[in-house]
């Protein structure tokens, strides 16, 4: 970025007449930027290409025969459209089953997590339960805990209640972890809930339960849907706890199934690449569908 080094006019008396000078620098700068902007664009595009290269290499080599790969290298166009790698991976990990596992776990966590967050935040934000500050702080701190600190006891507990290698263990754990964050976020949203609406509901004789579903829920529904999407994607991308809790292929999620094939004799270049490719597709599809919500959510979360 060519930062124009301009001498700053010091604010002292007797500086040169102002208007013509400003105009001169404006014209000057515009002229200079006219060519400089193309260099800036080239630089930004170059960074984008660097970000994309791994994906391009992956797609190129997902459909290239192993012999073709060892002969012509990773950058050549595939000599034939080779689908054996994809088929290998697909049948070996039983991909449709992993897809269903991931959707089921993430979907359940999203729904339960949002419901739990809504209940807790209703009590904290609208009900102004005593000690709410310490409860919210506790939930926030819980979010910072490394999962290693919970995993062994949870592993033991799951075995004791007969949930070892059971997806419900993962669903329950992540419902609570996500809801800890959701409660923190929602209770600050509900803390500013319009009092007039609540009073009107109470004048109508609505109890707390009816107020929650009839008044609060419709108003915060947009926030809840953002939370729902986030919980879904966060859980989808989780690795550590599913890796520990789901020990057989039949129960595993997509990332865990892909990672546990690493080092397998079967994983030649096309199989690895095809595996990575199909494992990425759902995440990319979500991103494309929810792009607007996601960008808004990321930034809203940042500013709080």
């Amino acid at each position, binding site marked *: *970025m060519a930062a124009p080094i301009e001498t700053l006019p010091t604010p002292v008396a007797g500086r040169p007449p102002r208007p013509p000078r400003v105009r001169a620098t404006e014209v000057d700068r515009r002229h200079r930027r006219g060519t400089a902007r193309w260099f800036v664009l080239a630089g930004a595009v170059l960074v984008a290409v660097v970000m994309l290269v791994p994906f391009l290499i992956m797609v190129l080599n997902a459909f290239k025969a192993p012999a073709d790969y060892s002969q012509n*290298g990773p950058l050549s166009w595939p000599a034939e459209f080779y689908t054996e790698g994809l088929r290998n991976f697909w049948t070996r990990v039983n991909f449709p089953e992993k897809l269903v596992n991931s959707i089921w776990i993430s979907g359940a966590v999203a729904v339960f997590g949002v419901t739990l967050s809504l*209940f807790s935040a209703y009590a904290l934000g609208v009900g*102004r339960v005593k000690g709410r500050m310490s409860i919210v702080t506790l939930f926030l701190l819980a979010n910072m805990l490394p999962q290693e600190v*919970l995993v062994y006891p949870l592993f033991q507990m799951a075995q004791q209640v007969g949930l070892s290698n059971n997806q419900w263990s993962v669903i329950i754990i992540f419902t609570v972890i996500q809801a800890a964050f959701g409660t923190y976020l929602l209770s600050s949203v509900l803390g500013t809930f319009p009092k007039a609406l609540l009073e009107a509901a109470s004048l109508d004789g609505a109890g707390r*339960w009816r107020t929650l579903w009839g008044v609060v829920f419709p108003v915060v529904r947009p926030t809840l849907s953002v939370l729902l999407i986030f919980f879904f994607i966060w859980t989808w991308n989780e690795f*550590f706890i599913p890796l520990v809790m789901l020990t057989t292929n039949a129960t595993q999620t997509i990332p865990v199934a892909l990672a546990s094939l690493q080092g397998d004799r079967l994983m030649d270049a096309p199989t690895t690449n095809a595996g990575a490719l199909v494992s990425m597709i759902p995440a990319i599809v979500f991103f494309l569908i929810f792009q607007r919500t996601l960008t808004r959510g990321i930034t809203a979360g940042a500013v709080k």
Partner: protein
Amino acid sequence: MTTVDRAAPPASRPTRPARRRSRRSREWVGYLPYLLPGLIAFTVVILIPFGMNIWYSLHKWKGGAAPLRWYGLGNYTDLLADEQFWTSFRNSIAMILAMVVVPTLIGLLLATTLFDVLGKRFGPRVASVLRATYYLPQILPVAVAGVLWNWILNSQTGAVNVILRELGVANPPNWLGSTDTALPTVMLVLIWIQIGYPVVIFMSALQRVDPELYEAAELDGAGWWHRFRAITIPQIKPETFVITLTCTVAALKVFGPIYVLTRGGPESSTLVPSYYSYLNFFDKSKVGYGAAIANVLTVLIILVAVVIMVLQARSARREEEGR
């Protein structure tokens, strides 16, 4: 559930504000049933396991049905003499460099470029397409991205070394397999993964800044660099703090990329605390020791987070006083 304590008898009507206060002071009790499921779940899934983990860390335990043997603070004093433990925390500094410092600096540069130059000169579409491209690695499951990189960097069959050999390099580096290159290589992958996050946040921060500030500065003849330092940096401070906090916590916790890229190797050169704790839990069957590592990591994370939050609060206060 609906009408538990609604019938507050309006016995003797005291003055209005007092009445309101007393009503309000009791009203919250009726909301407790809504908080109960969350509190119970939180206790069962987070508080009790956390307590158990502390308890384990005071024992020698092989896990499973093996007996727990009291060891007091022995695991913690053992840690102090454990070379690998110190390596893992030293590597955490490298993780912070790769996941916080470098991405934040590059992200700020990219975001201002997109916002200041490309967005204005080539239209918002160009800027948003580029932004989405930078963000792409962030949306993938980190384990999936790691598996892809693991193959790209494989010493024998990986794309990078095949290309290098074609270019005539006889002995291309064993990127993830040699103690000299493994850590820097992992760091590069982490930077690639991480960069999109600060870009997206900084871009929305820049949109928040009042353009009149820039116009006024421009009229005063302030150059780009001067405006950047005097206006942009202070204005986007809240976002910078949020990025620093969230990314530092993530860097200290990092597990997935290490697991799929190097498993902490070679010779512990990429070992990080979370992976070391995992190793002790499930590989070495030293549960008490693994629990101690996880606890030390927790204390460190909370300390770092508190320091960042205090700095943020202090900076916000100073700004308010300045105004």
